[in-house]
């Protein structure tokens, strides 16, 4: 009985944490956040050089052959640092191919994705909150796909897009495909840019295994992990600010109103890391429980992240409400984590249904 991380997993987190501190400090983060496309080649290259491009890709295809829990642990650290870039969509694309691709598709794509030579992403949701695979309407006919996919992470930059289609299937579409139109969306989270993808009889390849639900569940786990990392970072930002900001001749941290709020914030987030650990572990090892655990983790942690972001702005007072403050960067990541793949109320209802309540 061991509800904890292995030495390797702790080392993995420390390594990534060190990388983020060095390669993505606040000024750099700010520059990418303000930038045109929310992408920094040096930062992304650094990440793929560390092997982050293919964490869950089997070793035989050039990846690290790790599990979702390992990937989620990395995502937690990236969430702490609000690291901008295409990691989330890319990781889900590698997972979709690993789980559902044919040997030939894996051979063709996974080594390139793992090495960073190619960038992947996933086009899952459609308009009107159609995040559930059962609600997708994109149609495949004779090797061509037609449909509208909303909110595709780094859709403009991706070389390979894994597209969710009606009936809960997945197809692969390449950047060069005819009939593919990608338009940027003015997203709220400038560290994870989005695009709208329109497919008009675009040539595609179907993934032979039905893994759309699994990919969605993995996405939920990763958003929960990101939310945990981000929320933990917010608490430490609020604590540091409260210790240094003085009003009425003392640090505001000395006022019980502020202290108690900070205590409530840490009480909200610290016990909740196990929700994403367990959801990831269930995805890897306990398939019967995976779907519900992922929904619960995402609903709980993303809601918590959003609330702590509000609290953190309040602890900061006026400065927290400015564009200049870094707090807004995490605030908007919370907005993304909370909404992407479905808001908490939607997943809480799924939690109820999956338990036959």
């Amino acid at each position, binding site marked *: 009985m*061991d509800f904890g991380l292995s030495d390797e997993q702790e080392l993995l987190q420390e390594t990534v944490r060190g990388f983020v501190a060095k390669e993505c400090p606040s000024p750099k983060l700010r520059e990418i956040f303000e930038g045109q496309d929310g992408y920094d080649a040096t930062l992304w290259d650094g990440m793929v050089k560390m092997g982050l491009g293919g964490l869950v890709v089997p070793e035989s295809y050039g990846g690290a052959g790790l599990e979702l829990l390992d990937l989620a642990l990395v995502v937690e650290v990236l969430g702490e640092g609000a690291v901008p870039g295409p990691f989330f969509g890319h990781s889900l694309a590698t997972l979709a191919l690993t789980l559902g691709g044919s040997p030939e598709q894996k051979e063709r794509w996974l080594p390139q994705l793992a090495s960073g030579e190619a960038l992947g992403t996933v086009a899952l949701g459609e308009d009107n909150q159609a995040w559930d695979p059962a609600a997708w309407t994109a149609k495949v006919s004779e090797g061509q796909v037609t449909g509208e996919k909303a909110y595709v992470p780094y859709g403009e930059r991706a070389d390979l897009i894994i597209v969710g289609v009606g009936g809960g299937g997945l197809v692969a579409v390449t950047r060069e495909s005819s009939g593919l139109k990608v338009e940027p969306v003015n997203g709220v989270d400038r560290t994870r840019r989005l695009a709208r993808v329109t497919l008009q009889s675009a040539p595609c390849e179907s993934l032979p295994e039905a893994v759309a639900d699994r990919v969605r569940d993995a996405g939920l786990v990763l958003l929960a992990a990101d939310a945990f990392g981000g929320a933990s970072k917010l608490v430490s930002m609020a604590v540091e600010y409260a210790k240094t900001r003085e009003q009425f001749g003392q640090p505001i*941290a*000395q006022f019980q109103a502020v202290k108690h709020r900070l*205590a409530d914030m840490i009480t909200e987030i610290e016990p909740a*890391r*196990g929700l994403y650990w367990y959801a990831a*572990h269930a995805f890897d090892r306990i398939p019967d429980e995976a779907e519900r655990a992922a929904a619960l983790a995402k609903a709980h942690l993303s809601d918590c992240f959003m609330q702590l972001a509000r609290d953190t702005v309040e602890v900061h007072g006026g400065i927290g409400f400015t564009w200049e403050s870094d707090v807004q960067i995490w605030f908007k990541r919370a907005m993304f984590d909370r909404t992407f793949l479905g808001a908490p109320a939607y997943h809480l209802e799924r939690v109820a249904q999956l338990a036959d309540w």
Partner: protein
Amino acid sequence: MDLSYSEEYEEFRREVQAFLKGYWPLQGDEAKLSHREQATLFRERAIAQGYAARAIPKRYGGSEREADVLKARIIGEEFGKAHAPGDIRSIGASMLVPTLLEHGQEWQKERFIAPTIRGEMVWCQGYSEPGAGSDLASLQTKAELDGDEWVINGHKVWTTGANIADYMFCLCRTEPEADKHGGISYLLIDMKSEGVQVSLLRQMTGTADFCEVFLNSVRIPAENIIGKRGEGWNVSRSTLKHERNMIGSAEASRATFRSLLKFAKGVQLNGRPALEDPVIRQRFAQIEGYVTAHLYSGYRQLTLAARGQEPGLAAMLNKLTSTNIGHMLAKLAFDLVGDQALESPSGDEVMNLKPRGGQAWVSQYMWSLGIAIAGGTANIQRNVIAERGLGLPRDRAVQRSN
């Protein structure tokens, strides 16, 4: 992450199961003994087997086993399943005994530990006073040395079980000239002493589960002190680190969650089963998030302890997390009981009759507040988390008064 137990522990679990199968419930003539006698008899056998009093040396009546949180947990699980009386969870066993082991004199350990862990000697805790709640160190109950006796005068409150206790461990002011914390001593009072008067304290629930104790010129032997004069505050604090309730509160929260869910299945709301109401479903799912997080945090703390690491901040959050969940569950329960909330959960005249069904949840609605206040209020927990957990500065008024 591995949620199964290793073979060594599975083997240990089988041993515990076999023991329970052979010894509990008691058979034959032994089954005719009173509940308390049966429990005492069985507990002696469990101690002999090494399944109880594991942290207590053999010379004081314990089984003296190496600390092993996983074995302790397996014993807890298996004894729980068999409804067998394991380690006694009394105030004496959980608070006084660890204090004696750390600070007691040899004669005190020999005299008090064994009967306490067998359940034969019952203790109550004399800490809170009407004027000393969260600010416990401001307590005013006075003890003065007169020859070879302490003479004690004062008033203790919220003393659970004082009406049935044999002894009270009590914080008294013995050094009036010393500073606030340095003037306190830790004394042991025989409850049969002359001048000890106990009255029941009735709570808002209508039942009386606590007592008040009035001490009027109570005389006890001078040797009934743990630690030296003026060291009582530190002696009393040392017990806190023994209170390693890493998992108990989380499992209790889960049990309450499950029984409320079961209750909801039999209740109608807005003309349909309550669990079909979308708002009720959302609230259950939301609370399950907190309950599950709390439980996993307990598992993680247990894992860290098993690896010899400190759970640190996570352990400081257990009480507040647990009482927060208690509030959420109580509120949801209150919405499910409907009109039963108009009826008192206890007959006004009939004290201490445990309510059942919907009435139990009405009682729980009030009790969730009692639990949030007892043993360090939620607001005191927030101070502790903020100061010791997050390293925030102490309140200026508190800094001055110390």
